[in-house]
């Protein structure tokens, strides 16, 4: 007869959450899920970007669609970008006037306004305006097309949605934003000039001469390179979130929000990276 065993002291089983993970490890599990989800999302965006770039850079191109997107993304964004630039240039000049008198910085007001606009504010603000106006519109349009089977219909009509829907938007956003940034630079400088004339009595001709004497070609070019990168981001995020939208009207709304938020974050992040890169050139 086997010896009688002493009963083991009762030890409660570790409490479990759904999915069988001990409660103690739940935060780690959640962190792991978030990291895996983030990696999957980055991979999905990179894959989408690769396919979209291939569609944008190789024939066949849909000229009518590209023209339509140039009008929608470029021309129709002029008023909002122009107004933003004017107010920004004027506000920047006002700040220099009111805050810079402590060290006589108002004497170089035109130069600071021009530098701030061409290198930073022109491309960034034009891109943020485009993220709000264009990325949202692209995501909602393509998302609605996805929800109503129009994207499937394109495939059954022997037309590649990447070439017909994505490539034209990507091309137009990437090429239009540098043009819009140039317009923003010019209008912003005009805004600064208006303040310079009314508060510091700087003659417009002198303001413009000072601006152009000071600015280098690289000041403008670096801003335009940034704008091109930002335009690509806006087009890509709008198309990606629209293309991956699911769940009807709610899904389209969520895709629209994500397109704007991710565009804005990526614009500001890549702005820092590009500025760092340019600083070392």
């Amino acid at each position, binding site marked *: 007869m086997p010896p009688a065993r002493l009963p083991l002291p009762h030890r409660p089983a570790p409490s479990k959450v759904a999915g069988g993970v001990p409660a103690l490890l739940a935060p780690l599990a959640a962190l792991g899920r978030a990291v895996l989800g983030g990696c999957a999302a980055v991979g999905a965006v990179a894959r989408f970007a690769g396919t979209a770039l291939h569609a944008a850079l190789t024939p066949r191109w849909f000229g009518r669609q590209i023209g339509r997107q140039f009008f929608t993304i470029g021309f129709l964004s002029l008023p909002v970008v122009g107004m933003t630039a004017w107010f920004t240039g004027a506000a920047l000049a006002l700040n220099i006037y009111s805050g810079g008198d402590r060290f006589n910085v108002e004497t170089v007001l035109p130069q600071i306004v021009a530098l701030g606009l061409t290198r930073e504010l022109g491309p960034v603000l034009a891109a943020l305006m485009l993220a709000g106006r264009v990325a949202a519109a692209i995501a909602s349009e393509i998302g609605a097309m996805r929800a109503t089977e*129009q994207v*499937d*219909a394109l*495939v*059954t009509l*022997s*037309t590649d949605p990447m070439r017909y829907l994505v490539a034209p938007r990507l091309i137009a956003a990437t090429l239009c934003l540098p043009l819009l940034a140039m317009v923003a630079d010019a209008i912003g400088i005009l805004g600064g000039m208006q303040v310079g004339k009314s508060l510091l009595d700087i003659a417009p001709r002198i303001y413009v001469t000072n601006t152009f004497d000071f600015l280098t070609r690289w000041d403008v070019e670096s801003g335009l390179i940034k704008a091109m990168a930002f335009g690509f981001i806006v087009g890509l995020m709008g198309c990606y979130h629209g293309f991956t939208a699911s769940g009807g009207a709610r899904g389209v709304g969520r895709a629209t929000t994500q397109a704007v938020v991710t565009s804005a974050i990526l614009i500001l992040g890549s702005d820092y990276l590009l500025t760092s890169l340019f600083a070392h050139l």
Partner: protein
Amino acid sequence: MTQIPKLRWNSVHKRFGGPPVLDGMELAVASGRSLVLIGGSGQGKSVTIKLALGLLKPDAGSVTLDGVDVAGLDADQRAAMFGKVGMLFQGGALFDSLSVWENVAFRLLNAERMDRAEARARAVEALALVRLGEQVANLFPGELSGGMQKRVGLARAIVGQPELLFFDEPTTGLDPITSAAINELIRERVTGLGCTAVSITHDLHSARTIADEIAMLHKGRIVWHGPVAELDTTDNPFVRQFVSGSPTGPIDANV
């Protein structure tokens, strides 16, 4: 020699996270025949068609068109395949930014690169077949009723003289006279032009008119497949309940 079916679903399995939508489905349709797929809502009828079009990939099994696995086609082969396929989507799936005639002539303009004037003339001809006049051609989809949008979608499906046609609820939302005309048009495509057609419908009158054969899908499998003449005589309990519309029987009306 055994003839290869035009279209065949070979033990197809498909699920979207939850229970299987298709669970080993077997079905085939011969060339020049009109097959109508019936079944309750949410039984996977639209998924069945999307798998045949390559818009979805099966988890297991295959769908073959003329003996070739649809899921294995590359982009060029798929584009060529779609050149001989016409599809009417349940909601029409018209492109909002294009006029009615540009929608109908979309394949002619973009895939076949036809001259715009010629493509418009072909679109107007197709619109006449679905009983829509030329005055509709320049309108936009948003200016049309749901039934008219459906007919424009149908005109788009038949404009390229396809060999294989798919219709997802072709007569839903249409008045009886237009429904009869659409049924006649589908029948004429099959009998007169030798097209193969696969349709989904809940409209049994339409099914009796357009079908050579009918298959019933329930819980991811074909539970009955037979000639249209046997629809009203079969003793299959699923078909009997579906045809009679009785809430009691093997099909649970609760979701």
